[in-house]
């Protein structure tokens, strides 16, 4: 079997298994809702559960067999070791390039892109703040009236109803952040291109002024020298810990850990004496049907 054939076989198998997995999961969920809707009271009986789940048993067993088959296929045709791929934040690369330019030489397009990104992040964070405020208000409203009048939604002060109500707000906040994140990625990519060109122009200008012949290797040397000088400068200015020297002391870390550890021990001791530990035991030795979804 050629390498291409092996890869294709594994890819086709993986896609088929993915579809079968989704199908099996959907069938399980459909069956459990179907059991619930099958009777007005006491929907879950042994007979009903057996009937519904035996109906999808062939699909489930086919899935299990497919999983085992996957193990056999991957043992027979193991994956070739992959070279790990590096991941470097675009923001880090952008900052490294921008630090090679004096402030006055940063291109106006780059500054404009940065300003737009700042505005987009502020707007998305504002969306998150609004959704947080609305959610908090709904959750803490003592006089909340549930919209859905079924037992599931009205129980416990309308807890489920409140959660359904705040869900769109929470998702809106997250999607705002996702949009800002993707926008920032493309904007940074564009900005890196602009800044790289500016840095290259600067190096070329410097080389011309000093009269050096700009061959590839000599340009590389000039660039390396300027990068090394500026990178050393970067490392010195990068370290915020140098502003607060005591934070670099190992005793600071040890002291902080001792303090937090002492706080933890003190809280445990207080909890033992005020009956907190007993509460944990009392709760744990009884079946909390509501906690495990039994209602």
């Amino acid at each position, binding site marked *: 079997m050629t390498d291409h054939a092996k890869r294709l076989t594994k890819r086709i198998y993986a896609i088929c298994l993915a579809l079968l997995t989704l199908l099996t999961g959907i069938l399980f969920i459909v069956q459990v809702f179907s059991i619930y809707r099958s009777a007005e009271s006491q929907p879950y009986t042994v007979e009903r559960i057996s009937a519904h789940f035996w109906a999808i048993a062939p699909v489930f067993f086919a899935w299990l067999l497919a999983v085992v088959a996957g193990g056999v296929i991957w043992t027979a045709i193991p994956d070739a070791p992959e070279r790990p791929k590096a991941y470097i934040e675009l923001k880090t690369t952008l900052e490294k390039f921008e630090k090679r330019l004096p402030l006055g030489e940063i291109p106006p397009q780059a500054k404009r892109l940065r300003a737009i990104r700042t505005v987009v992040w502020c707007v998305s964070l504002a969306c998150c703040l609004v959704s947080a405020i609305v959610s908090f208000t709904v959750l803490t409203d003592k006089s909340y009236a549930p919209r859905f009048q079924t*037992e599931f939604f009205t129980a416990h002060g309308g807890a489920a109803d409140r959660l359904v109500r705040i869900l769109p707000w929470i998702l809106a906040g*997250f999607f705002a952040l*996702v949009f800002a994140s993707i926008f920032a990625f493309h904007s940074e990519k564009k900005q890196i291109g602009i800044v790289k060109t500016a840095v290259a122009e600067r190096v070329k200008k410097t*080389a011309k002024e000093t009269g050096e012949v700009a061959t590839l290797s000599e340009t590389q040397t000039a660039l390396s020298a300027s990068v090394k000088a500026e990178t050393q400068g970067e490392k010195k200015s990068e370290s915020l810990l140098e502003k607060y020297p005591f934070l670099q002391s190992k005793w600071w870390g040890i002291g902080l850990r001792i303090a937090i550890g002492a706080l933890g021990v003190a809280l*445990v001791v207080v909890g033992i004496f*005020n009956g907190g530990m007993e509460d944990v035991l009392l709760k*744990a030795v009884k079946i909390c049907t509501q*906690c495990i979804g039994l209602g």
Partner: protein
Amino acid sequence: MKKFFGKIKKWFVDHKPTKRRLIQVYTALLYNANIKGFFNGEIYKGASKNACVPGLNCYSCPGAVGSCPLGALQNALSASKTRAPAYIFGIIILFGLLLGRTICGFLCPVGLGQELLYKIKTPKAKKSKVTRVFSYLKYVVLIVFVVIIPLTLTIPGFCEYICPAGTFEGGLGLLSNSANEDLLSILGPLFTWKFAVLVAVIVLSIFFFRFFCRFLCPLGALYGFFSKIALLGIKLDKNKCTDCGLCIGVCKMDVKKVGDHECISCGECISVCPAKAISWKGSSLLVRPNDADMPATTEIKPLAGMLKRKEPIEEEETALAQSVNEMNGEDASNE
């Protein structure tokens, strides 16, 4: 015949579980050591339930011998008007300080289950900017379900509406025993919802690495606050680090830096670092360098050789120099 047995032996050697996997399995068994409970369908009522286990393990599981820290926290907050929840706060602080998110990587049965599900050979969803944003969802779950709902509505919000461990270990664990058939009569809409959540988490864990841990687990969110100060975990030597980005590339969690609040201290990044800048905290005292989840036959030296590459800054310099050279070429032709 000898060849056949040789192949079988090689298969077992190649698929030998790593130390981390063994610790995860032992921990899962230890948390659920009340084997009798699985046969008689009753939960354990001994004194060891005064203490919480570090990982997520439902105390209504018939085998559970300790309490769940998250369940205990929610109950303590529900009852906070009558009693300050000092005990559980102290327990979580001590777990976080001693172990941090090493608990997630080594001592959580839910994490073990998800990693085993992820081994099923389907196409996998890669981490991206979107998954990184959604990794903050667990903090929302922590604040809404573990803090606000217990405080305002006096119910354990996370246990009641989300926790798949409770449904699987507690719910299904009890219902699977014929002695608990009477519990079927109280199943209703809540069980229907929670079962659907359980199935969804299981299916999504096959496609996303540690789906529940990355996006929903409030316990991981809590322990993440202790990442920097935890006594055990992964640390990065910034003096040796060349910012090559291989550690972040190899990591399946949504980390920005090694050892941050998303890092579960699994140790996979240790072996890929060409500068050997990553190590275990306290490695000089306690543990040997990790062999993580790599196959037993893979040797570190050849891998390190394969990984050796130019520092990224050299590649950037080359690209820049080439672009300058192109400009020089243009200028010369214009002149």
